[in-house]
């Protein structure tokens, strides 16, 4: 490993002062070659990758691409689940001045075609047979695409005959023959702070996805921000589980991982998420609201199934935790609270948290979408201070964060270091920082609307800032419903009230230019199925489940409860249960499970009409 260290020496200064992510990697490979950078669970065992190995493999990727004729500014796509190869490819690509484009693993072939075509990608890293098949299906329409490098070639039948396909290890060998680390180091030295290095396609709840271009300066700005805000260091440990092509996971698993030097763990993913969390016990966890909601729903379900005594015990300590958490949020954490918390810790919180995989959690964040305050309160009660943050791809996910010592539920906190926030005359939230992106790829019109002459990013969100600088987000500017009576209503506020129920997975409130509001409700099949089993109701499919009068009555109860807390114009007068799950493949939700309102309004026009 010392050989690697020596060869990295030239560009390697201090990781703190490096001018690009690949340069930070080289610096770490010199300073701490043997320290673990990544860990991944393969065939049931955790395998470690140290910095020297990561740098060597990333270099092989970079020089392999050069051998395939990739040059500065070319786009290279990655279509895979989170795994060490994703990071190697990402850094390898950036290191030669090319641009890394992430594609969601769930993206159907048509979406791949759009992203690869729009970005003019010349090489694609495809994970396995499934993703290779998608690419082969549409490659006739992608004249720029020259090579497909396959991480896991098992079952890819044409791998040996098709000249376009390459096995990952063969490709790495190509890069090693082409100079490997020695030459990559020179390439990395040429990457400047203003060079576009990644393109993140935004989920596109309206219209086709837009390719947000981010440069090294954008990416590096996040490192200092996170260090200052959350005090991340090499002692932290994270689990990489949200899609890596999303800016939030990229920040956690690649950008800050290099910046802070902590270990990134890749579990088995999917159904094994809970086991992964239990095994890793991360200290820093970023979740989307759905993750926190599901975790809470899982606990609720297990408690319901336990004995009466256990239930009473659980509720008692949860109530205690709730009180303590409230005091803590307002900086009134006294001696009595300390005792209560210590007892609760010994009797409930510790074991519960370990079971959830949150035993060591130091910083817990929720972002990407609004979360119900009730969910946050729950986690605070068991001593996991989940804090909301706000940001978007276009500002490298940097806008606001919640101060640890003065948490105000319902807001997304205050401007984070280095970020300016302003509310425009029409209520739109504007941000300005080093994180503000370069612009959308090939979309001058959107760029003109998004970044103004003074460098302010127009977020498309509407909100307010209070006297202490706490930002409250009302809704997406485009989503605000104006009823026939002329009232402005934020649908997501109402939707979140309903989503508090573990039985409700997704809600779409409808009512623009209508007399009253209605809702389409997608139930959580697992939770509702479980409820039915306990109630002794039999069912077959989701369609059958959602047509049961008992289930409709169950959801009616949830709606009534929410309605009781809402103003008259905001109440839901009618709702319909959806008989299928909303699916990315069907174009109903984005890859990040954000609802595409326009698509749903169109697909369910009859159902909606029937409610009026």
């Amino acid at each position: 490993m010392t050989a690697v260290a020596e060869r990295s020496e030239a560009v390697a200064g201090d990781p703190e002062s490096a001018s690009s992510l690949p340069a930070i990697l080289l610096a770490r490979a010199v300073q701490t070659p043997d320290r673990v950078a990544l860990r991944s669970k393969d065939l049931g065992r955790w395998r470690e990758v140290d910095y020297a190995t990561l740098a060597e493999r990333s270099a092989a990727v970079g020089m392999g691409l050069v051998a395939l004729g990739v040059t500065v500014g070319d786009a290279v796509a990655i279509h895979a689940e989170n795994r060490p190869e994703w990071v190697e490819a990402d850094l390898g690509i950036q290191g030669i001045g090319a641009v890394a484009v992430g594609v969601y693993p769930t993206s159907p072939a048509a979406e791949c075609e759009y992203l690869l075509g729009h970005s003019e990608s010349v090489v694609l890293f495809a994970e396995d047979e499934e993703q290779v098949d998608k690419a082969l299906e549409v490659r006739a329409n992608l004249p720029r695409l020259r090579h497909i490098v396959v991480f896991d070639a098992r079952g890819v039948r044409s791998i040996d005959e098709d000249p376009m396909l390459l096995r990952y290890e063969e490709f790495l060998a190509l890069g090693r023959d082409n100079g490997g680390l020695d030459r990559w180091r020179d390439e990395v030295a040429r990457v400047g702070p203003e060079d576009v290095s990644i393109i993140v396609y935004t989920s596109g709840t309206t219209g086709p996805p837009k390719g947000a271009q981010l440069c090294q300066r954008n990416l590096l700005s996040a490192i200092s921000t996170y260090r200052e805000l959350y005090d991340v260091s090499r002692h932290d440990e994270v689990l990489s589980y949200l899609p890596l092509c999303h800016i939030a996971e990229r920040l956690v698993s690649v950008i800050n991982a290099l910046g802070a030097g902590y270990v990134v763990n890749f579990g088995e993913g999917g159904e094994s998420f809970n086991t992964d969390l239990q095994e890793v016990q991360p200290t820093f966890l970023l979740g989307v609201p759905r993750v926190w909601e599901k975790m809470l729903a899982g606990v609720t379900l297990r408690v319901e199934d336990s004995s009466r005594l256990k239930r009473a015990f659980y509720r008692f300590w949860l109530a205690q935790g709730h009180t303590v958490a409230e005091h803590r949020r307002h900086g009134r954490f006294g001696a009595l609270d300390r005792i209560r918390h210590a007892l609760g810790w010994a009797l409930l919180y510790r074991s519960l948290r370990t079971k959830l995989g949150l035993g060591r959690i130091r910083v817990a964040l929720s972002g990407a979408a609004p979360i119900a305050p009730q969910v946050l309160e729950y986690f605070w009660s068991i001593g996991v201070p989940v804090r909301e943050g706000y940001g978007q791809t276009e500002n490298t996910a940097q806008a606001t964060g919640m101060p640890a010592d003065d948490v105000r539920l319902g807001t997304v906190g205050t401007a984070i270091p280095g970020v300016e926030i302003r509310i425009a005359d029409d209520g739109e939230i504007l941000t300005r920082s080093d994180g503000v992106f370069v612009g959308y790829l090939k979309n001058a019109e959107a760029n003109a609307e998004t970044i103004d002459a003074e460098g302010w990013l127009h977020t498309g969100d509407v909100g307010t800032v209070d006297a202490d600088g706490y930002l409250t987000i009302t809704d997406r500017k485009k989503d605000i419903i104006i009823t026939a009576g002329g009232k402005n209503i934020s649908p997501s506020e109402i939707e979140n009230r309903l989503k508090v129920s573990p039985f409700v997975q997704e809600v779409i409130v409808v009512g623009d230019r209508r007399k009253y509001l209605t809702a389409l409700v997608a139930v959580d099949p697992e939770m509702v199925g479980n409820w039915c089993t306990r109630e002794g109701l039999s069912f077959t499919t989701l369609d059958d489940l959602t047509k049961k009068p008992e289930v409709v009555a169950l959801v009616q109860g949830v709606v009534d409860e929410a309605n009781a807390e809402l103003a008259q114009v905001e109440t839901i007068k009618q709702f319909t249960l959806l008989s299928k799950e909303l699916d990315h493949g069907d174009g109903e939700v984005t890859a990040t499970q954000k609802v595409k309102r326009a698509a749903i309004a169109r697909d369910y026009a009859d159902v909606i009409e029937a409610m009026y």
Partner: protein
Amino acid sequence: MAPATTSVPPMLTVTDVVLRFGGVTALDDVSFEVYPGELFAIIGPNGAGKTSMFNCLNAVYVPQQGKIVLDGDDVTGKKPAETARMGIARTFQNLGLFANLDVIDNLMLGRHNRMKTGFLAGALWLGRARREEIEHRRRVEEIIELLELQVVRKQPVGLLPYGVQKRIELGRALAMDPRLLLLDEPVAGMNLEETQDMARYIIEIQEELGLTMILVEHDMPLVMDLADRVMALDFGTPIATGPPAEIQDNPRVIEAYLGQPADATARDAVHHVLESRHHAETEGEGVR
């Protein structure tokens, strides 16, 4: 799917097999060939002799006449354990798992025939036994990955849903690293979703491992979707062998299923049975 070309020599040759139990003839002059990489299905009404044929293939029964040859080796007259060593693995209609053992241990049992170190070496955890155990464990983990059993790997098999148990049963057979895999009604008693999942795994086994398989199954849409060739049995006699589409239209097959000569309406009725689930599947998630 692997084409059944005649240019390659068959992997398995069954010639004129006759099996009698007292006065009952279970198999009467059955002959067929299975080619490397092929998925060969045997169909027929209840009691047609499908499972009897399987039992002859792995030497549970010894046929009175005829010959079964696997890659040049005669199977007839061997003991079941010997056929397992020759590379024939099977799954059972009724599960053959150890309910109190976890998934890993059940699959490790499938590796038993591949373990070379003796009891003493294993008990003392000597170098070779240890290396061997690690190697077997790795193979078991590969199967767990292939069949997506990660989330249940440490759970006792008896507590798991039926559909998952069937998958573990398949995994146990795969753990033997067989040359020829016999699948006895892999989707019996499963709902539509579980059936689709199982179909997906069978396809993956064929594509990724290139394994030769013989499938006995009542679920006609599944057979028609997956099989490269189909043999229909009736009262122990093969009445037709060929590609699925051909078998579906064969008047003798239709007759065997309905117990009467085929006329136009009967044919439609059978087609309906053979195809209705098929459409349900392709409209839904779809079996490739």
